[in-house]
């Protein structure tokens, strides 16, 4: 495997970095060169093959103009990056931008690559009892570059004791162009703090997006996450949640609907490291023609994490030929006084429900649309931010039903 092109790009970029930074980055680059991109031989990368990236060459992406109108949500603050560069005109919270250097635990080659090239990202730190006045919308947009381009960013979100925030992370991309994007998030929630996190992915077909979020929850902290995936050529998300102290709580939901030709891989790992933790996880997917969806969810209950209450469910609708679903819900349990359950299904729209609807005069295509919508809404309805909920529903093809008068 040759990853030499990345080293060449690094040398060209290095001059622009301060000396101290350069050393740290070089160490990361060397780590990357040693590890390379993960291969399918690694259990965690069994269904997603990045080895083709090794032979590729990407230039650092440059900012270009990009349309954002459709993304704007009322009554929220914005921090916008285009191809990894801060867009001050579009941002209302540009003071939150900073170069973030954090260590990633259990780093892979991708994490090392990300750290070696990282450009500034969101740096949100809330003090004790602080509360973000308005939801924060982090837009990580990609725009076409003349050559294949890459963007690597690192972000930090630290909430102090009993602090509260609502954050939307949006990955979006304009069509055209070939991009490699890596995004890393370091999230720490102090005791009693609460984060509502939305992750929305609507990248372009030519993009390869690898994102990773590591969150550590202290005593009685709570995180509510809704993840939505639509576009992208290849998207891989790692979401690692550690319930490090007693009483922490996780509410996690996801919905994926890969476009034709897309490969979506959601990896979640929830570690119950302390007693009295609670986690709920629900992922649903609708997988159409020529697309592939991967879900790998792991729940770990560490020794001593008694009274853990954990549930995980993944449901897939596989609706077309030449499509594939790979689901792997895992449990690793080292404590006995726990309640853990998981379930996984792959299937189609319910024939009896379809027959019921048709028998009431609803056309077959409408009946199918209705059932798909009902399937998706179980996740979409968990979005507690109405403007975002409506936009996401529209984006995924489930607009609110038209107000039609019922026949008398």
């Amino acid at each position, binding site marked *: 495997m040759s990853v030499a092109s990345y080293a060449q790009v690094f040398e060209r970029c290095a001059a622009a970095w301060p000396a101290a930074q350069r050393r740290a980055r070089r160490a990361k680059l060397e780590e990357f060169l040693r590890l390379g991109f993960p291969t399918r031989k690694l*259990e965690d990368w069994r269904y997603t093959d990045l080895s083709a990236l090794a032979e590729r060459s990407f230039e650092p992406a440059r900012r270009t103009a990009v349309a954002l109108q459709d993304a704007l949500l009322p009554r929220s603050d914005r921090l916008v990056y285009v191809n990894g560069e801060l867009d001050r005109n579009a941002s209302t919270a540009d003071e939150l931008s900073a170069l973030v250097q954090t260590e990633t635990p259990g780093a892979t080659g991708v994490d090392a690559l990300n750290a070696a090239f990282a450009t500034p990202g969101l740096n949100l730190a809330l003090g004790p009892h602080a509360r973000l006045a308005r939801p924060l919308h982090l837009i990580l947009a990609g725009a076409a570059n003349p050559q294949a381009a890459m963007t690597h960013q690192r972000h930090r979100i630290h909430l102090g004791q009993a602090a509260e925030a609502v954050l939307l992370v949006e990955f979006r991309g304009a069509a055209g162009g070939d991009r490699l994007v890596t995004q890393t998030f370091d999230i720490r929630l102090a005791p009693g703090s609460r984060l509502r996190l939305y992750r929305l992915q609507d990248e372009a077909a030519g993009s390869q997006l690898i994102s990773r979020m590591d969150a550590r929850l202290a005593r009685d902290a709570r995180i509510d996450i809704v993840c939505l995936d639509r576009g992208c050529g290849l998207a891989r998300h790692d979401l690692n949640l550690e319930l490090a102290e007693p009483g922490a709580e996780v509410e996690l939901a996801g919905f994926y609907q890969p476009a034709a030709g897309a490969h979506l891989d959601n990896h979640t790992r929830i570690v119950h490291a302390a007693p009295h933790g609670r986690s709920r996880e629900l992922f649903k997917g609708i997988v159409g023609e020529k697309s592939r969806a991967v879900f790998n969810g792991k729940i770990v209950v560490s*020794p*001593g994490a*008694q009274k853990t209450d954990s549930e995980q469910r993944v449901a*897939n609708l*596989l*609706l*077309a*030929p*030449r*499509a*594939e*679903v*790979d*689901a*792997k*819900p*895992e*449990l*690793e*349990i*080292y*404590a*006995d*006084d*726990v*309640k*853990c*359950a*998981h*379930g*996984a*299904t*792959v*299937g*189609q729209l319910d024939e009896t429900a379809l027959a019921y609807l048709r028998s009431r005069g609803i056309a077959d295509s409408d009946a199918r649309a209705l059932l798909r919508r009902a399937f998706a809404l179980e996740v979409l309805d968990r979005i507690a931010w109405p403007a975002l909920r409506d936009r996401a529903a529209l984006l995924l093809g489930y607009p609110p039903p038209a107000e039609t008068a019922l026949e008398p």
Partner: protein
Amino acid sequence: MATQPEDLRELMRRREYRAGFVTAIESETVPPGLSEDVIRLISANKREPQWLLDFRLKAYRRWLTMEEPKWAHVHYPPIDFQAISYFSRPKSLAQRPKSLDEVDPKLLETYQKLGIPLKEQEMLAGVASPVAVDVVFDSVSVATTFKQKLAEAGVIFCPISEAVQEYPELVKKYLGSVVPFGDNFYAALNSAVFTDGSFVYVPKGVRCPMELSTYFRINERNTGQFERTLIIAEDGAYVSYLEGCTAPQRDENQLHAAVVELVALDDAQIKYSTVQNWYPGDEQGRGGIYNFVTKRGDCRGKRSRISWTQVETGSAITWKYPSCILRGDDSVGEFYSVAVTNNRQQADTGTKMIHVGKNTRSTIVSKGISAGYGQQSYRGLVRVLETAENARNHTRCDSLLIGDRCGAHTFPYTEVRNPTARLEHEATTSKIAEDQLYYCRARGISEEEAVSMIVNGFCKEVFKELPMEFAVEAGKLLAVSLEGAVG
């Protein structure tokens, strides 16, 4: 009042392994080590034809290039494959006895002690329906009962080394056709050095008149056992086969690396049951068998059916995934498993269901019980290929945890490439409910009895798949394995 954890630990220590004795018998054992010469020696010893020696050598050369699998959720020191002796047989069996009367009485006594009846008359006198038994002692088969009666029905049931001599065409046709010689590290090792095991052939349209069974016994120190079993059910045939196994109580680990191949043709049905009770090691984890086994059934014919039932109570380490390749249209695969890990036992076991044909169905029911410091994993794969229209799978994995030092893990893989497939997987992990225990105790049932009742209820779905006599046996074995372990 529920039993306190201290009492549990005390109770767990009382567990005993009733098959742990050694038979004092003179054996011929080749010196430890593995090389082409050893393989040639084994082959020559068994007077094998050239093609089989070639098969062994091919497997050995492949094995040399392979790496030991490390992905299973088990931990053990590296195995020194040169410290194992690959062939051992009681001296008295250098010439295979023609009838039971010629068998060394010490050997017969061993089986009597283990409760395996070998005398046909005794069997027939009993109330239970007779079972034909093939007994394998270290590397060789001692005796096979009811051969005559089976032959009348056209069923071939004999040690595989005998089949190589008597029915070379059949063996040549099917050996390695389900588990290729280079399938995995342990399958390659087995293909190179396998010694004995059973061969079953049920011709077209024949329903095997009795249960068939093989009993494996490891006796000699520092040996490995490499059994090879091949079962073929022709069109419309039916056979039910059961294997059992035990080994002496020793402080060293011993390796058992078996390969079992099943072939079911059109409308054929094979029911394969295992009651695995290899020595599990002591409470500190000293000794015990490493049970690294490749079992695979090929539903080659239309409407064929293969069913695996396993009760795994023994072995220090288990690495085993009895699988079904559902090639024929409308074929059915089933896997029912109860696995117990107590003390320091580790098990990584499950199944693979590969759906290839149309309208193929599979069912997986796995019940894991983990106690003491036991670590247990269910690892299963359900794969639906593009060709498998209307494939259907239902999987259930339940784990019961007894004590706070053990672990129970679930790693199910689901891979679906056909939009008409319907798959469900569900899994739960919990401990024995306090209210159930309380209910039983309030009605005058002792703690141990109550636990035994609850555990038996937990496993019932699997036990009902076993032939009746063995279900009773399995229930007893479970009681022994968990004796006092629970509360």
